[in-house]
């Protein structure tokens, strides 16, 4: 079968192999990991006719340059507003294109977004750990980080010319400054004015933004007293407050447990577009009920399924 091979000519920090992740192992200290923007990864795959959770390259703002050294292959790029340049020809993410041997492709940040996904028509060869290729960035376990001078191999590589062209970018894949969250589970340990500050004052993303989480600049949210809770489970999207009142939102490679109080947790459906925000961006948190957040998750799942089905219908 045909094989395609790429030489990695540049890979910024935090460029890793990701897939749909390995949920269900938090009780062993293993977070689900997987794409920071899960719908974008699924759409990149679906645009090629791949299973939605297939392994992709997750490109960070550090960017990526690949040279196809062997074979010919169709690729899809989805997520964020990145610049995709092939042999000097500029295009954008949310597109399907075909490379032949000798072609060079550069992916770098464009007008918006922090993460984009490069999917391959074929099977990207990547190390599995506990049933998934998703890279756990802190340990490097899983498919791993891309490094300068390394190679990527795709087995059963195909060109799928009929898939070429743009991928529609759903509006809910774009980040929004208003971010819904559910208060708790430890909001009761904060004075009313701290909860009010969380919901009424703007926060800004700092440059401390990686796969584990993002630290926010904004009002300090001091708990009622010097507070240490017994270590307990932490979910993706947890809004954690450290001893000095600084807020951090935990993301795909979060620690599975922690002893800092969590004043709130982002609505699951909004966690991925939140991850697409950039350092300096402003967020305004809005409290919704657990039930409202659950209905948002159901609505988003239906919207995602509809987009995936439309892409699957493409010949």
């Amino acid at each position, binding site marked *: 079968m045909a094989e395609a091979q790429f030489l990695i000519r540049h890979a910024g920090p935090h460029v890793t192999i990701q897939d749909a992740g390995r949920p*269900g192992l938090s009780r062993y200290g*293993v977070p689900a990991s997987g794409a920071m923007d899960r719908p974008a990864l699924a759409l990149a795959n679906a645009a090629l006719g791949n299973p939605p959770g297939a392994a992709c390259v997750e490109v960070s703002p550090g960017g990526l340059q690949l040279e196809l050294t062997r074979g010919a292959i169709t690729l899809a790029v989805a997520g964020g507003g990145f610049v995709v340049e092939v042999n000097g020809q500029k295009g954008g993410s949310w597109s399907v294109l075909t490379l032949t041997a000798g072609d060079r492709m550069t992916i770098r940040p464009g007008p918006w977004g922090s993460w984009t996904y490069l999917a391959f028509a074929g099977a990207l060869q990547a190390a599995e750990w506990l049933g998934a290729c998703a890279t756990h960035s802190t340990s490097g376990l899983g498919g791993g980080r891309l490094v300068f001078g390394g190679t990527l191999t795709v087995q059963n590589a195909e060109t799928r010319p009929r898939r070429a062209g743009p991928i529609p970018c759903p509006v809910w894949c774009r980040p929004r400054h208003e971010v819904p969250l559910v208060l708790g589970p430890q909001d009761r340990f904060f004075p009313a004015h701290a909860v009010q500050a969380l919901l009424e004052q703007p926060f800004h993303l700092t440059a401390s933004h990686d796969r584990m989480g993002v630290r926010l600049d904004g009002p300090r949210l001091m708990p009622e007293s010097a507070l240490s809770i017994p270590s307990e*489970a932490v979910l993706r999207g947890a809004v954690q407050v450290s001893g000095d009142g600084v807020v951090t939102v935990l993301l795909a490679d979060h620690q599975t447990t922690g002893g800092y109080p969590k004043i709130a947790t982002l609505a699951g459906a909004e966690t991925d577009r939140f991850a697409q925000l950039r350092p300096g961006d402003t967020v305004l948190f809005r409290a919704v009920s657990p039930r409202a957040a659950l209905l948002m998750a159901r609505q988003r799942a239906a919207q995602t399924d509809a987009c995936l089905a439309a892409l699957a219908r493409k010949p």
Partner: protein
Amino acid sequence: MTGPDLRPPAFRPVADRAVLVEFAAQPSPQAEAAVRALDHALAERPCPGLVEAIPAFVNLCVVFDPLMTDHDRVTGHLRGLLSHPAPQRSAPALHQVDITYDGPDLPAVARARGLTPDQVIALHQAAEFHVVMYGFAPGYAYLAGLPEALALDRKPAPQRGVPAGSVIIAGRQCLITTLTMPTGWWIIGRSATPILTGDPARPFLFDPGDRVRFRQAGHG
């Protein structure tokens, strides 16, 4: 199932996809037993849409798929489990873990507690530990049962680059590291026993609740 010292559990919704069942504000053997019992009962009788249950010192976080169920249904299921006595479990597994007591902090631990290094080793080796929970990083199992005579606060600043396989202690706990990571705990030895086993059928050596004893490598 809840002991006389425990308040009735609180059920706290977490975002769109979890219920945190909390048995106490602070750790105690009773709280831990209650968490363990509910964790076991849920494993025996999972509810539809269950993704995972994450045990910790005073609570169990029950994560569900919001497309398949909701907070009320999961809470109802958990209340049902709590209202029935837990099925009798067989005794938790006992693991023997190899250790070489050559950690760089062994002399400092001995000094701080007014012991000789040999006394530290004897106390650590005589203790029976049990796995309270995993946390922090893959395979980091918090082992309770460190004797009071060895209890020390964490170091004021974490030490970087502590290699995987280090046996570290702080408070009344012990831990075998699985990654090279910074830690503020005291390094008393190293272990060649892998916690991340590499065996797909049983990728982690311990289950929460399992018992653990340390055995000096090369001493039978």
